């Protein structure tokens, strides 16, 4: 039986995600790696990893779709589409009734208004660290704890304190003050989660908040933020099993759609030269 494969590459500011699907939307491979200074140029290396995992060659992939902040740095991609459209598509494949998708990554936060899997409107915040993963990273660092432990620590809180949501730097100062006054670590961490949640909720309320509300991105792995977001928004917040993959997944699914459309219309699909080389952009 002949299979056709589609790849989605989400080159984010913090993490690079690649997924390879077959025509039945079964996952053949997925890779999640730090973008770093190198990978901004070396999407090809991450792609090689994904191909090795899947046992395929690049020529066997019918369509390669790039998305994310670094989507222009993927020379072997056939096309690039914004992560806004890709996330909407990806989230809708997990939760078909999604109306509001919230994606909080390392350096930005997005709200997507979706209906029937189609993106209708969006809000974005990418200038300010407050309300993004960076907020939690900076403060975790200052507290000497790991970002991945924040969630479980906050669940122990019995009396959370209020922390400023306006500015990461101000929040850091407040955290130090609370701790020096003897406030328990878990209560401070719970307050932090409230701060980031209220910041994100304030942004997405510019779109309509109606179920299903889905939360993705690295920060969605933090159970404390998920619960704080539910409290801020006043409704249930759903989180996919792999919160980092919706962008890459959406990209691959759109790639599949475009391919099948072209095949049905008897058109040839425009593909790139498929050289797995680094972005020459920077030379």
């Amino acid at each position: 039986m002949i299979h056709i494969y589609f790849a989605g590459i989400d080159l984010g500011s913090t993490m690079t995600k690649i997924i390879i699907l077959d025509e039945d939307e079964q996952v053949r491979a997925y890779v999640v790696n730090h973008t770093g200074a190198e990978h901004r140029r070396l999407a090809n290396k991450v792609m090689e990893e994904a191909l090795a995992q899947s046992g395929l060659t690049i020529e066997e992939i019918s369509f390669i779709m790039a998305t994310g902040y670094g989507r222009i740095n993927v020379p072997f991609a056939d096309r690039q589409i914004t992560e806004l459209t890709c996330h909407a598509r990806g989230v809708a494949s997990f939760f078909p009734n999604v109306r509001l998708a919230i994606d909080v990554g390392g350096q930005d936060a997005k709200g997507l208004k979706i209906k029937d899997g189609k993106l209708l409107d969006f809000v974005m915040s990418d200038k300010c660290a407050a309300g993004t993963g960076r907020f939690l990273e900076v403060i975790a660092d200052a507290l000497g704890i790991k970002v991945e432990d924040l969630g479980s620590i906050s669940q122990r809180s019995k009396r959370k304190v209020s922390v400023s949501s306006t500015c990461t730097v101000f929040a850091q100062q407040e955290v130090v003050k609370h701790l020096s006054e003897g406030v328990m670590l878990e209560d401070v961490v719970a307050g932090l989660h409230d701060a980031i949640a209220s910041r994100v909720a304030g942004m997405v309320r510019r779109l309509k908040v109606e179920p299903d509300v889905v939360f993705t991105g690295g920060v969605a792995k933090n159970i404390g933020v998920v619960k704080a977001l539910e409290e801020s928004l006043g409704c249930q917040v759903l989180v996919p099993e792999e919160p980092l993959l919706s962008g890459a997944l959406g990209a691959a699914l759109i790639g599949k759609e475009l391919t099948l459309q072209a095949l049905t219309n008897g058109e040839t699909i425009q593909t790139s030269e498929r050289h797995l080389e680094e972005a020459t952009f920077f030379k």
Partner: protein
Amino acid sequence: MAAEASKGLAKAREVYQDRPRRVLELRTEGKKIVGYLCIYPVLEMMTALDIVPYRIFGDMREPITKADTYLPTVVCPFLRSCLDLGLKGRYDFLDGIITSHICDVGASIGGLWNYAVQTPFSHHIDTPHTLHETSLKQQKALLVNLKEALEGFAGRKITTEALRDAIRVHNEQRALVRELYELKKSDPPLISGAETIQVIKANESLPVKEGNQLLREVISEVKDRKDGPQKKSARLLVWGSILDDTALMEMIEGLDANVVMDDTCVGSRPYFDDVEITDDPLDGLAYHYLVDIKCPRTFRTNSYTDVRKDYMKDLEGRFGYLRDFAGDWKADGVIVQSVRYCDTHGYEVPGIRDYLDSVGVPSIYLEHDYTEGALAPLRTRVQGFLEIISQ
């Protein structure tokens, strides 16, 4: 100096890139150059006195270093940049400067410029912000003041005939700009949004008759051109704060879109209404330079229309012309943009988007920084918008 002087679009590009060159030449020939901020200073009075009006702009590629001493960082970066360039001597060739009460910072900048840059002659017009009968009376009185100030500076009076002639030449310019804009109605438009900024900015750096000549050359060149903008999937209208650099336009036009129309001040705003030549020319000028110009610094609600309590009717009164622009230029969507800290445009955004929504025109709001570096995230937003409207 080039052996063969360039014409049309090439000339517009040259002037755009080296704006002071022509006025510096004219200065050595004894002409007076008076700078002006924004589109409220009355150009016709300067032309009538054979003074060359020269619009003052910032430079978004020049980091603001000196203006911070005089203006806080949380205000309009465009005006901060203008002051910064003044402090750095880039406007030392001006014999005078006219400012007006465009906005809060605009109101202060006249005084700051006097204090810190010290251009020999200066005048500030305290242009009213509403369109009531009393505002129009005040506007006329302010123009009488302006006329007297300019006459004092020039050492002679402005005759009624000279003023009427100047109005005619400036109206000719307005008609030429409108003629140029007609060429943006085709699909694809015959001139891009970026090229339009170059032409308008060049025009505002030359004496009016030379500007008219440039416009005529551009129109005749563009009408028959074969190397115009490529046809794209979406046609856009851009509304908002001053865009005195092509960078944002180039970013938008680098995507799958043509910018076919604008409602900005280095764009259509100064040119889409003529000055009526009234018995006392100051009446026509007062009306044009307050009522005709559709910048949001003028508060149009509760003025000439009685729609205080009806939000949608009020929006129609304020923004109806935009629906006509979008229809006439066949725009598929509107980019609503403002520069960071521009309250004047920022406060219009909810109303304008509600209005466009009510008439079925999709829009997106972009806030930008008056720097080149911050354009990449805006690119994602514009591309996302184009992906939505193409569905």
